């Protein structure tokens, strides 16, 4: 079960305690997150909603190890990621986390296949093994037939599928999605959400997603609202 009051079990799969994030704009302090707590169990699909500037992306950045909190701790699968060095954090991300962005963020000079292969370059897999993993991930993301296309030759929905394949190719424990349907039409958005949902269950990945779209949020197990830097538990949608 998801918890936001800081009383979750010691063994929570993802645990954040007293998270503060302050940004500085000149002399001005901007409190983005204030004493935020979160407990997530393995395999859950959580959607974060909230108005613009409420700190959703900042929270995703912290949980995904892209940024460090001003105060507080985050434990992911028992590892305190807030105490890791930059290099260790990069290593942790490479083997534990997949990211899906609103704008896909594929490398335009690489084919779909090569984009998906990138995370595996950091492993000791052979070329042949990498190929097997890449094709499997593309198969799961239903984009294998477009493997030799460049991003500019793909539609938004297809690019997002490539992005998802890249995110899952190294079998991560967590999938962080920032507005994965934000740049897609309703039909493509639904398809992407269905894909994320099925991958979450099929691969037992814990998914944390930021969205503005209630329709997309409906596909998650739990919706959490972020307001003024703290999380408010929403009603489970499923």
């Amino acid at each position: 079960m998801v918890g936001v009051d800081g009383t979750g079990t010691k063994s929570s799969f993802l645990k954040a305690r007293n998270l503060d994030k302050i940004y500085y704009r000149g002399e001005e302090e901007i409190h983005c997150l204030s004493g935020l707590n979160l407990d997530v169990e393995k395999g859950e699909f959580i959607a974060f909603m909230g108005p613009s500037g409420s700190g959703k992306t900042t929270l995703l950045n912290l949980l995904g190890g892209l940024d460090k909190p001003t105060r507080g701790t985050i434990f992911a699968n028992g590892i305190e990621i807030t105490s890791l060095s930059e290099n260790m954090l990069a290593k942790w991300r490479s083997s534990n986390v997949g990211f899906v962005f609103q704008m896909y963020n594929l490398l335009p000079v690489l084919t779909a296949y090569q984009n998906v292969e990138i995370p595996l370059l950091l492993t000791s897999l052979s070329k042949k093994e990498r190929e097997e993993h890449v094709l499997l991930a593309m198969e799961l993301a239903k984009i294998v037939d477009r493997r030799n296309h460049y991003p500019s030759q793909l539609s938004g929905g297809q690019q997002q599928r490539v992005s998802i394949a890249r995110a899952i190719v190294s079998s991560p424990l967590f999938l962080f999605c920032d507005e994965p349907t934000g740049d897609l039409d309703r039909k493509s958005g639904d398809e992407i959400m269905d894909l994320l949902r099925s991958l979450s269950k099929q691969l037992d990945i814990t998914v944390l997603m930021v969205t503005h779209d209630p329709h997309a949020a409906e596909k998650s197990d739990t919706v959490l609202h972020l307001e003024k830097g703290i999380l408010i538990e929403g009603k489970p949608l499923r």
Partner: protein
Amino acid sequence: MKFLFLLAANIKRKKIRTFLTLGSYFTAFLLFGLLSAIKSAFNQGVDVAGANRIVVGNKTSIIMPLPISYMEKFFELNGVKNVTYASWFGGYYKDPKNFFAQMAVDSYTYFDVYSEFKIEKNQFLDFMKDRQGCIVGKKTAEKYGFKIGDKIPIIASVWGGVWEFNLRAIYTGTKPEDDLTQFFFHASYLEERRPWGKGMVGWYIVEIEKPELAFSISREIDSIFSNSPYETKSDTEKAFALGFVKQIGNIELIILSIGAIVFLTLLLVTSNTMELSVRERSAEFAVLKTIGFSDSLLYFLTISESLFYSFMGGSLGILVAKLFTLKGDPTGGFLPVFYISMNQMVLGFLLIFVFGFLSGILPARRVYKLRIVEALGRI
């Protein structure tokens, strides 16, 4: 190796920019190669100068002569192995533009002292038997199509008239930097025909037993002839050759200055190009960091990209320069030894590495310091 396709994709990204960057390196290192060859040409005398040879000239100027009678006195000095002499002739073959160095030498001793010049025994004997005989370097012989037995008319700028010589021998060298353009004939023939300056020679070359004796013997020679009508100035052959080069100007400084300006410009241009390229790709680097690429790995990849440009462009530049110098002197006689030595090639490749690395440092540092959340606009 597995990151190569990333590197290749980035290089193909902007073909014109890649071409221009490679072109910058190519031009700079082509120039480096050619300047090295020119420097070699000017320093040729310095490079081949024997450490065991002292050149004795007139203290007033190298163009002033010394009496032939000095020769015997040199032989009396301890540590002296052999002595020879030479005189500048200063003529041309048919046309003033057909210039090569001609020297009247003591035929009995000159080629013993300059043992690096290789002459076939029979040809040398023919030369010794012919009062008007001459020996020509292989390059000059090839250039003008001289063959053994040919009569070679030389128009004497200093002494006047046409002097006819019989080509009796062609010499070769033992090292690539040996000057194979010279023309030697008997000093006795000069002595016989010239209207003035009889009993005088241009300069002496004193071969010594050990290089470490050069300083003491030089001082001894100069002290013997001090306060005489023909005071001497003795120096090692290397110092003598350097002095000769410096009469033209400080060639090395000029070449170094040109080279430094070219390479500084190259560094600024390529650094700027790399910086632009990296800045354009900030979001992509941020994505790679998100995926798990460490700061140091991306630093390495950025430096590798910079090194790729320098190696591809620079190597091609040096290679083309080398091929160009293989054709020999492009000036028709002004640069008799025109080649890029192995040392200069190695220096060139070292510079390629250094400039590739330096061009990549600032862009790589930018990548290293790049923060994911800022580069992706995720704040």
